């Protein structure tokens, strides 16, 4: 779905938008370099790797030499991105034309990373020490639980059963844009709110994290630090426990929030406490590029518009409710029907048919997934049709003119409007016409000129 990409990109833009100093500061951390490298488009990665051990600038033409004609656009994208991120520094040589060389800090760190590997600022707790760590599965479920109830809370903060330790102020921050706080009739999900729910976990995560970072200043935290910490976090080993007191205070506070989001699991040891990064955390750097962790699908769409979802999750039920009528709920099965009504109010909420369809495709049960198409055509078509049904009338701001002094003035006006492509309707008999309001001004002037 398009939004995911946008959000993911936005994050890189955030990184890119940092000031040069801050960027260099970022690049001082080996892991950031690594993370950035991964987030680059494939071609860009290749370029970085090629120039990794080359000090003096390399002419652009020489790099371009390797690209086949149909790859040129990709080439340009890659170069732009590299420059934007200040990984490439551009120099102009008399003979060779524009040349590129790697940002030295970045280069050195990456070299180091590749040769001797980066060393985390903290060691994982050695297992000899008696605390039993949660298994990966446990951790996974924990993470998802956390995340889901966070989302639930996010959606219906109206009924305020306090699930997560996230300060309501923080929650407000997240809800900004997703919920529209109307007075009286509690908060409603906005358009983007619904779209948000239909995204896959990583995209959502990144949306939240972005919000989190963007309002870092408000909590007087340096976003750069935040970013670097998050990225660093993503290099910790899932399931390993790390000592909390290796962190700065800022990081600790951040960690608490992250724990609520299910990125890390806090564990109280005998004397000192530990944090255990979950898959969500280690995937932070993943979703910079395309996400890849996908939970198994659970939805089955029938050609008769009935939908069965093998799920126990309350959240997923909520999500389905967005566009389908829940008929009954068994312990592990939600049976619902996609009806005209259910879809209509989904559309009212600004969910597009494409989003719904992609959602269905991505979450369709494995057994349906292997059959093509995973969603029956007649359903997809119907959904589209119903959407287009709503789009029968479109409003355009317009102005209405009449009482023209003479036929030819009227004709002139019509032609003028036509030239401007603003003529919507004309009635030559009674000399009346309707014109888009964009051209109203020109129209007025024109008529004035006619007038005298």
């Amino acid at each position, binding site marked *: 779905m398009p939004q995911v990409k946008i959000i993911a990109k936005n994050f890189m833009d955030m990184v890119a938008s940092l000031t040069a100093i801050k960027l260099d500061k970022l690049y001082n951390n080996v892991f950031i370099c690594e993370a950035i490298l991964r987030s680059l488009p494939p071609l860009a990665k290749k370029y970085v790797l090629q120039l990794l051990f080359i000090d003096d600038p390399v002419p652009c033409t020489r790099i371009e030499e390797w690209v086949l004609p149909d790859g040129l656009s990709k080439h340009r994208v890659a170069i732009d991105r590299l420059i934007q991120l200040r990984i490439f520094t551009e120099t102009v040589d008399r003979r060779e034309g524009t040349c590129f060389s790697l940002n030295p800090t970045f280069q050195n760190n990456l070299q180091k990373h590749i040769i001797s590997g980066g060393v985390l600022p903290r060691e994982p707790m050695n297992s000899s020490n008696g605390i039993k760590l949660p298994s990966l599965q446990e951790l996974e479920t924990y993470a998802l639980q956390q995340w889901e109830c966070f989302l639930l809370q996010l959606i219906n903060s109206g009924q305020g059963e306090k699930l997560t330790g996230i300060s309501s102020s923080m929650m407000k921050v997240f809800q900004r844009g997703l919920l529209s706080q109307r007075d009286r009739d509690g908060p409603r999900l906005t358009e983007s709110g619904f779209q948000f729910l239909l995204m896959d976990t990583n995209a959502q995560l990144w949306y939240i994290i972005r919000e989190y970072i963007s309002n870092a200043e408000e909590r007087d935290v340096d976003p750069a630090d935040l970013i670097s910490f998050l990225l660093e976090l993503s290099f910790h080993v899932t399931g390993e426990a790390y000592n909390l007191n290796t962190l700065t205070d800022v990081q600790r506070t951040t960690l608490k929030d992250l724990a609520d989001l299910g990125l890390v699991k806090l564990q109280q040891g005998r004397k000192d406490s530990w944090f255990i990064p979950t898959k969500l955390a280690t995937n932070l750097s993943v979703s910079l590029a395309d996400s890849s962790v996908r939970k198994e699908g659970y939805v089955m769409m029938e*050609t*008769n518009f009935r939908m069965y979802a093998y799920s126990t999750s309350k959240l997923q039920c909520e999500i389905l409710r967005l566009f389908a009528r829940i008929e009954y709920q068994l312990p592990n099965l939600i049976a619902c029907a996609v009806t005209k009504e259910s879809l209509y109010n989904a559309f009212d909420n600004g969910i597009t048919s494409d989003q719904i369809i992609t959602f269905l495709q991505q979450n369709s049960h494995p057994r349906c997934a292997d059959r093509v198409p995973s969603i029956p055509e007649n359903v997809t078509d119907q959904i589209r049709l119903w959407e287009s049904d709503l789009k029968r009338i479109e409003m355009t701001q317009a102005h209405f003119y009449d009482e023209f002094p003479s036929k030819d003035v009227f004709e002139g006006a019509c032609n003028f409007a036509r030239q401007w492509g603003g003529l919507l309707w004309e009635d030559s008999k009674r000399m009346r016409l309707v014109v888009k309001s964009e051209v109203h001004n020109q129209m007025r002037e024109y008529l004035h000129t006619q007038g005298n």
Partner: protein
Amino acid sequence: MSNQRKRPNGEREEDDEEDDAEGIGQWERAYVDDRSWEALQEDESGLLRPIDTSAIYHAQYRRRLRMLSAAAAGTRIQKGLIRYLYIVIDFSRAAAETDFRPSRMAIMAKHVEAFIREFFDQNPLSQIGLVSIKNGIAHTLTDLGGSPESHIQALMGKLEAAGDSSLQNALELVHEHLNQIPSYGHREVLILYSALSTSDPGDIMETIQKCKKSRLRCSVIGLSAEMFICKHLCQETGGLYSVAVDEVHLKDLLLEHAPPPPAIAEFAISNLIKMGFPQRAAEGSMAICSCHKEVKIGAGYTCPRCKARVCELPTECTICGLTLVSSPHLARSYHHLFPIAPFDEVPTLTSANDPRRKLGKSCFGCQQSLLGAGNKPGPCVTCRKCKHYFCLDCDIYIHESLHNCPGCESIHRPKSVSLMEE
């Protein structure tokens, strides 16, 4: 006649359902067609589970493998590496039957296409020709040739069924064609027969004898039911006769004909074949290729005898008829000469004193753990020579596609030893 035949797999109910088909909705129809419930079975706790087809599949596979290797009891046998195969497709009235969906005709065409590709992949030095039977007459769709595309085109062009089918006419025609080809070639006929009768102008028995005399190896794959005449034909000429119960089976049966068949002693006539090993023409050089009669820039090969330009290998020089190949094409057939012996199954029950303790618990090929559920050793096989263990998937892959045993290959065995083991 062929139209009141019953198929084993419950075609009966099918028909009944079709009767009240207009009653039920499209969505139900989908399930009626692909009987999805047949893929389920009840486990001991009474839950529905999908049947794990892999085990079954592997079992079948091993059976087939053993059967084949049984044919070559220990000693190596000659294979018909250079084959001249005519595929005869019966497009008589019966081919319009819809017991194979959408129709026998369509299914035959589909799988023959697949077969042709596979065939040329396995026998690069061989040639195929297509013949169709319609209205009691056999038509030559394509003459013997080495390029899959042309055959497939011709086949797809000719998709309608009508009239009776005549085994004799077909055999006569093919016989005329195959008599022309040189003695070292292995002459084969593969007939896809969907009719339940053959109406012939003359005495078909004589024709069969004729085919036998001129060393045609005729195989038949029936689509409806076993017919005596087909069986007789195959027995006389040393071919295979089989009847497909459903589409999958048909596919398998067809593909069984892709690897070269063991050469029958009295049929096999060894000979030296003159072949050209042309060199690739210089990049960007321009010439007129003799196969398509059009100008080609760059790629192409030059016949060493008549210097004509051909587009791809392997082929027969259109000008001087010399067989043009490249050494890899020969190499493609080598594995037919040196098949690897089927692996032995390892009895899983001996988990207590399991030799696998020593040899590691993972498949030597793909490193997959050989421990099944609950850490008890799962099913696996072992190679007689190198004594390494392999998982079932690797077993199939090694015998079907790879054709050499990773274990034996990764042991350097001095010649003396290897000869001993032969």
